């Protein structure tokens, strides 16, 4: 009876949008959920546990950042047509509209037996279900000299949107016309498969406007462009002819900060005026430290139906830190989609109802090839109970025919909607 009342409440609140903390205040809590990480995955999970449960489940979000800064669209800051402020959204609505309790701190440990999360402040948070969405860590130590070069500000990654995004833009502005910008790409999987190629386009677009004698070098550890390959290659050949050069099978092994030189496992050294090195990536540090990253110590293995960790009971992992299913990108859109599947599973278990046997995920990644024109890749993923993984639905998904301004409008609309869906 209780359960039914709550779910009816959930449906009504979700549908009418009238969910408020005050109206839920009298109802006893049906459980405590703690969410670690306030990115696309964690913030969405926090909001949707509240929505799906009609406010019946208490949610605490642990995130050290003052505000959410989006990685998607951040290449436009590097291209010079957006600012970091355009990508920044407050966490306030999660609390004021959805009743999420926010703790501005970092998680330093998980006691899976005692079901508590340890915080840097020393405080411990008790949970019934834990959702971990820690994003990625950059493995600077895989490239000799990179840690110091990055700390010194000479060689940037700008792969986590924030101060480095702005600093990389400043390096490009300071570079004289006729200079070389080089970006190195690690072996897949890494965060945002089309991101490095979009960034190359953004830098080329800026050079074409402001420094037309300059060059863009893409040094890719992979055998070929990992996302939207034919589309990007056509843009480089036509729109940025003579400016962008793509070199596959370039796995960076060492950098020299003073001479801005990158060495490779096999290929010849490359010197650049602005050197942008993306090291290999792995799950965020809390996942590595706690053993949640149980695939080669890098990614987190899961029961994909619920995103529950195979390493710890009642702990769900979402976003860029997971071991991906086939054709599943590490993207903000995908993290948001996974968050909803995990949130629904957590709500179902806490309210003791059946977990969705066939959860679905969608993904759409837009890439700006200049300041206005955009291409996309889209996919639909359905959980396969026999294979126990997500598979793309046959015949679904695809890419753009070519770059268009219409898709540029849709890309900006996507950003506005997903930011509101994640945080609003």
């Amino acid at each position: 009876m209780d359960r039914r009342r709550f779910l009816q409440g959930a449906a009504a609140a979700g549908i009418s949008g009238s969910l408020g903390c005050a109206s839920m205040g009298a109802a006893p809590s049906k459980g405590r959920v703690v969410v670690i990480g306030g990115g696309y995955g964690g913030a969405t999970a926090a909001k949707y546990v509240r929505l799906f449960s009609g406010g019946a489940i208490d949610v605490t979000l642990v995130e050290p950042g003052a505000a959410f800064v989006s990685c998607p669209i951040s290449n436009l800051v590097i291209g010079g047509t957006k600012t970091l402020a355009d990508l920044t959204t407050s966490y306030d609505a999660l609390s004021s509209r959805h009743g999420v309790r926010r703790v501005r701190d970092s998680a330093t440990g998980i006691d899976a037996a005692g079901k508590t999360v340890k915080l840097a402040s020393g405080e411990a948070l008790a949970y019934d279900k834990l959702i971990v969405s820690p994003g990625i860590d950059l493995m600077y130590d895989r490239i000799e000299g990179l840690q110091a070069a990055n700390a010194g500000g000479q060689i940037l990654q700008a792969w986590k949107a924030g101060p480095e995004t702005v600093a990389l833009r400043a390096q490009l502005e300071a570079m004289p016309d006729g200079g070389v910008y080089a970006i190195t790409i690690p072996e897949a999987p890494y965060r945002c498969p089309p991101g490095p190629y979009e960034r190359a386009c953004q830098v080329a677009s800026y050079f074409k406007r402001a420094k037309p004698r300059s060059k863009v070098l893409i040094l890719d550890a992979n055998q070929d462009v990992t996302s939207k390959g034919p589309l990007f290659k056509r843009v480089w050949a036509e729109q940025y002819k003579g400016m962008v050069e793509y070199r596959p099978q370039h796995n960076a092994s060492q950098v020299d900060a003073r001479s801005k030189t990158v060495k490779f496992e096999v290929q010849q050294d490359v010197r650049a005026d602005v050197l942008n090195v993306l090291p290999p990536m792995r799950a965020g540090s809390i996942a590595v430290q706690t053993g949640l990253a149980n695939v080669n110590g890098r990614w987190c293995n899961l029961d994909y139906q619920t995103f529950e960790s195979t390493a710890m009971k009642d702990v769900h992992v979402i976003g860029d830190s997971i071991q991906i299913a086939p054709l599943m990108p590490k993207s903000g859109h995908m993290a948001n989609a996974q968050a909803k599947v995990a949130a629904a599973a957590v709500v179902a278990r806490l309210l003791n109802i059946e977990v969705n046997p066939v959860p679905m995920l969608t993904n759409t990644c837009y890439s700006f090839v200049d300041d206005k024109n955009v291409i996309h890749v889209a996919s639909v993923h359905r959980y396969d109970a026999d294979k126990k993984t997500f598979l793309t639905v046959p015949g679904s998904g695809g890419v753009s025919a070519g770059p268009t301004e219409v898709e540029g409008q849709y890309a900006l609309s996507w950003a506005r909607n997903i930011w509101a869906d994640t945080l609003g």
Partner: protein
Amino acid sequence: MRTRHWAAVLAALPVSISAALAQDASALRASGLAAICAQCHGTNGRTQGDTVPGLAGRNREQIASLLREFREGKRPATVMHQISKGLTDQQVDTLAAYFAAVKN
């Protein structure tokens, strides 16, 4: 008398519980399915801005027929013809009913 009473309760119990569970689970499943549209069309189909159409409160038959036209390639699109091919007929109907019931 007493025994019969309890027997009746016990016999009735599994049926009423499973009916309640099915109803609850299906409401949660519909909300979960609708959430796959939200990244582009807004939470519960309430879109931000005027570039991408909202879904909240729209006519049920209209939503279903639009999705089917996208899926069958009868309506031109940038992305929706690719996304809609990932949906079953039943999912199309569930989405249409869900969004039609949202107060805009």
